[in-house]
């Protein structure tokens, strides 16, 4: 892979930030160095790791639940027309309900609890995952289905070796877009009704007009998500698509 263009592009971003900070002043936009020291202080007190951990745990749990439910629902809706007709209006409603409304209603109805927060994130991601997986289930290869039937493959074998591999690209797409969506929504959930996490920290910083801390937390979190994408999502994707013939 060629890293040079990426490095140049990142360098330009930092340079623009530097110039912007000079123009806008440290109160509106603190410079890169100032933010870096803020990150360092937060890191040494252990505050950063704690808030990051709390948020990541929420992301992981809600992402897992949403993907699992979305996959099951998507497969059922993709395969059975009646289920599709029945559940589709619900899906459309959920897809078009603003994230904020779902979160606020969840807190109003279930109280400012962890479960309400997680449920709100799941409900936000679920329709999106369902729609993508449904698309995959619709394009299942009938010929392979028949083959599995003729050879009397067990339901488990059919799921594991015939259906899921066909779903893999759709699951990967849903996971990709899901991860970035989920963490953004988790921050709002934390901002509105949780006593900890990156979203809560940013909320506090906002009230104190502390742009430095807002940037510090945002940048670290983006870096963590980038690392997850690079070191977890991409290797899994490569493993799953290892059978595809690659150009030499």
């Amino acid at each position, binding site marked *: 892979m060629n890293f040079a263009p990426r490095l140049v592009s990142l360098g330009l971003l930092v340079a623009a930030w530097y110039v912007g900070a000079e123009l806008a002043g440290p109160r509106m936009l603190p410079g890169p160095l100032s933010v870096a020291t803020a990150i360092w202080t937060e890191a040494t007190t252990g505050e950063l790791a704690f808030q990051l951990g709390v948020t990541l745990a929420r992301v992981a749990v809600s992402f897992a639940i949403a993907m699992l439910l979305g996959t099951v629902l998507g497969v059922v809706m993709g395969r059975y027309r009646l289920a599709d007709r029945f559940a589709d209006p619900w899906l459309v409603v959920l897809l078009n309900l603003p994230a904020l409304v779902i979160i606020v209603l969840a807190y109003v109805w279930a109280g400012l609890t962890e479960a309400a927060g997680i449920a709100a994130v799941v409900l936000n991601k679920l329709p999106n995952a369902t729609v993508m997986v449904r698309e995959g289930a619709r394009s299942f290869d009938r*010929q*392979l289905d*028949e*083959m599995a*039937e*003729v*050879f*009397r*493959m067990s339901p488990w*074998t059919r799921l594991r*070796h*015939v259906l899921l*591999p066909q779903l*893999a690209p759709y699951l990967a797409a849903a996971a990709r877009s899901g991860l970035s969506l989920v963490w953004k929504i988790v921050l709002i959930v934390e901002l509105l009704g949780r006593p900890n996490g990156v979203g809560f920290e940013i909320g506090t910083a906002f009230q104190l007009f502390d742009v430095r801390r807002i940037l510090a937390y945002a940048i670290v979190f983006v870096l963590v998500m980038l690392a997850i994408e690079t070191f977890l999502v991409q290797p899994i994707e490569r493993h799953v698509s290892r*059978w*595809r*013939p690659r150009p030499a």
Partner: protein
Amino acid sequence: MSRAGGPAQLDVRIESKSYRSASGGRLDVLRDLKFALQVGAVAALVGPSGCGKTTLLRIITGIDRDFAGAVSLPDHGRLGMVFQEPRLLPWRTVEQNVRLGAPEATDADLDTLFAALGLSAHRNHYPGELSLGQARRVALARAFAVKPDLLVLDEPFVSLDDALAERLRDELAALVTTRRVTTLLVTHNLDEAIGLADRVFLLSSSPTHVIAELPIARPRGHSLAERTAIRAEISRRLGRAAE
């Protein structure tokens, strides 16, 4: 292997099978199609293209249950099938494909099969890395690995070049002979039918039924002259039926 005696045979009695056509009418594809196979028999179904052969196989293999009539399979009804296209799982290796189709096959079984079909070097390849001929061989290996009570082949060598088709046919003939599997082969290629089967069922055009049953003496070991004679006989019968 003892497969003798009892009701162990393939018995097909289809009264009718029809599709609903686009204009709303009923389209009969099969009507009064009846035949039976003894255990160990190798039969070929030969008929004009579009005569519903694939539909017939879908009924026999149990994929399509929407028909009037009955089909009884030999013994435990274990099926091995080779489709027109290889229908391998592209995301599993050659060996995994065979094992998934035949979970009970032992390592020794697979070794012999792969050796017989010239696949030993390809066990760990993915189907995308194989030629069509090799993929067809894998499909054959999978069907045989099941140790089927009934082996069903749907135009298994179509769109291969003649020499390769001939070689695969010989390999198939050898496997069928040594393993004594009850086999049903669908083809529009007369040479293929004569070269492999010990009886040929001639099918009419749609709505399809069996026009004639021709036993073939000394199957799988004909001289060219014998083959030509059988060909001529079949063509004569088919021509008569068409009149």
